[in-house]
């Protein structure tokens, strides 16, 4: 066979890096110089380029917030319909080698640490299954020692039969590790860069493996290259200038979409809330700014799934939902073992939480609330039957 014209991209070479982009200082200057006319031009384009995203993120776009929100809602509705996909996080461990200044799992915090046994993971998952969840996000602190890849693989194999859609939010892995987890039935990966500005990144991640900015940046594309169906990106809002991080985030997503076109690139929008340790975000993002950045990114990425966090309070979540979100977590609990123990032997009290959940409604209440707002809650949006590994079926 002749060689293809486009060589397979080297997964070890980042398809996006903020270093290839204008510096934060240059971008800040461009943002400040944008005018209402430029915002209007961007809003009238059928397909937005990077410069348009920047315009919509600028303060010049603030007077157009209602228009942006309307367009974002219309696009989302057309592409995704009047449905909201529900998932639940399952925290398997809060052991962590990092010292991220904003996180409740920071290793210097004197909190109860634990990693659930596989039996406990199954028991916790059973509680979630009984509530109707078929879509789980397994989350852990970053500790390869406490949560080795083989443990994650075992979790996937044990939960696969009950949960067609399983995703992970853990430390960055190597390419072959993602491949082995994909074979074990892994659907998606969530891995947030936190901030795309290396200087800020270094300041808020003073020690631990997470200091490696580039390794974190590379991980989503390794996961996509391994064939995962979805990778979710995000910036932790509040750490740095949200306009810059939202811009880099949009470009990161776009470059992944182009290179790994079979993988869904999703976005999450974690906004800093008080955690154990009482971290005050240095550049808090207001509700108004939050709406602006979500709408701007929706217009830039019309087809990307957007996830709304339980970090946001109920009243706000109800208003935000229609603006571009397609999925949300429900009934969340961010401490390992925090869901009611339903099997004998899980008598231990839960360990400490990563952050405070604001929306504390049960899954059933959230589903009922969605119906009142005119959304069909979707519990199942994938079927294990697609993958041979998860079912043991042969083609």
């Amino acid at each position, binding site marked *: 066979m002749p060689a293809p014209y486009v060589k397979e991209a080297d997964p070890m070479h980042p398809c996006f890096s903020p270093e290839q982009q204008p510096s934060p200082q240059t971008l800040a200057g461009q943002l400040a110089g944008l005018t209402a006319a430029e915002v209007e031009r961007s809003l009238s384009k059928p397909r937005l380029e990077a410069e348009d995203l920047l315009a919509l993120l600028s303060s010049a776009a603030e007077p157009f917030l209602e228009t942006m929100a309307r367009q974002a809602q219309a696009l989302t*509705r*057309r*592409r*995704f*319909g*009047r*449905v909201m996909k529900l998932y639940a996080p399952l925290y398997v461990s809060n052991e962590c080698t990092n010292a991220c200044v904003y996180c409740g799992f920071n290793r210097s915090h004197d909190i109860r640490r634990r990693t659930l046994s596989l039996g406990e993971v199954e028991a916790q998952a059973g509680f979630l299954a009984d509530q109707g969840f078929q879509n789980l996000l397994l989350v852990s602190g970053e500790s390869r020692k406490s949560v080795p890849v083989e443990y994650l693989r075992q979790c996937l194999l044990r939960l696969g039969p009950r949960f067609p859609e399983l995703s992970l939010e853990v430390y960055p892995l190597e390419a072959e590790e993602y491949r082995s987890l994909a074979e074990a039935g892994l659907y998606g990966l969530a891995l947030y860069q936190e901030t795309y500005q290396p200087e800020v990144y270094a300041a808020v991640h003073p020690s631990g493996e997470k200091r490696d900015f580039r390794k974190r940046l590379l991980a989503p594309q390794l996961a996509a290259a391994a064939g995962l*169906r979805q990778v979710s990106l995000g910036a932790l809002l509040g750490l740095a200038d949200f306009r810059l991080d939202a811009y880099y985030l949009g470009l990161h997503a776009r470059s992944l*979409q182009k290179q790994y*076109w*079979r*993988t*869904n690139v999703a976005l999450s929008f974690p906004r800093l809330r008080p955690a154990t340790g009482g971290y005050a975000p240095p550049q808090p993002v207001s509700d108004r700014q939050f709406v602006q950045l979500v709408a701007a990114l929706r217009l830039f990425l019309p*087809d*990307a799934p957007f996830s709304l966090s339980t970090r946001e309070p109920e009243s706000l979540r109800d208003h935000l939902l229609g603006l571009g979100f397609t999925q949300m977590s429900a009934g969340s609990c961010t401490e390992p073992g925090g869901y009611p123990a339903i099997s004998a032997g899980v008598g231990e009290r839960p360990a400490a939480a990563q952050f405070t959940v604001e929306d504390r409604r049960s899954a059933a209440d959230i589903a009922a609330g969605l*119906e009142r707002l*005119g*959304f*069909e809650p*979707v519990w*199942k*949006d*994938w*079927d294990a*039957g*697609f*993958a*041979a590994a998860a*079912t043991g*079926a042969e*083609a």
Partner: protein
Amino acid sequence: MDELIIAGRAVKSRLFVGTGKFSSPAVMAAAVEASGAEVVTVALRRVDLKQPADPTLAALDPQRYLILPNTSGARTAEEAVRIARLARALSGNAWVKLEVTPDPRNLLPDPVETLKAAEILVAEGFVVLPYINADPVLAKRLEEAGTATVMPLGSPIGTNQGLRTKDSLGLIIADARVPVVVDAGLGAPSHAAEAMEMGADAVLVNTALAVAQDPVRMAEAFGWAVAAGRQGFLSGLGAVQGQAEASSPLTGFLDQSKK
């Protein structure tokens, strides 16, 4: 009697409807009913065939509707075939709308994998209705492979753009020996009528109903549009003239020379 026959089965309505994106199963069921459709697609990704209480399935009476499960989400022939087999094993229904869409954003069908999957499924006795781009050669290849229909798209799924592929659709309709169901991109009743006037055998609509202000009313409107478009096609549309010209400047001399 103007009957649509697919794989030997007479289908009452030439409007097929999808069940995704609605605000609730109740609204979906009401819209399906108002549309008059008999063929109703459901995504195997979304429904749980093992659960009789699955909200989508529970809302649709299997006696009234021909449930057409689709393989949306499959990225390869292998995945589509696997999910189709599982679905048939659980439901006993051998009809399948074959969708192989490796690109999760535009959801455009992969022609190579679709043909491969169609060949396997036809050989296994499935009634295969493949979702394809409006590619006339692919349509013929699928017909030869034994699919029950071809389902070319009018424009990318969910875009409501109407018949952007009109020229190619015309070629497919002209040469097809199996029913042609125009699927995807029909955003307004007039788009559906246009497809039917062109001679399409049926159309499939989902997003336009699900995201309408009033999905039930829109479903009814599509039902009328499909019927009207079909009547228009059958009654022989007048030829479209490029110019309003009563005289014959080029051939008029033939008559003059006789005089």
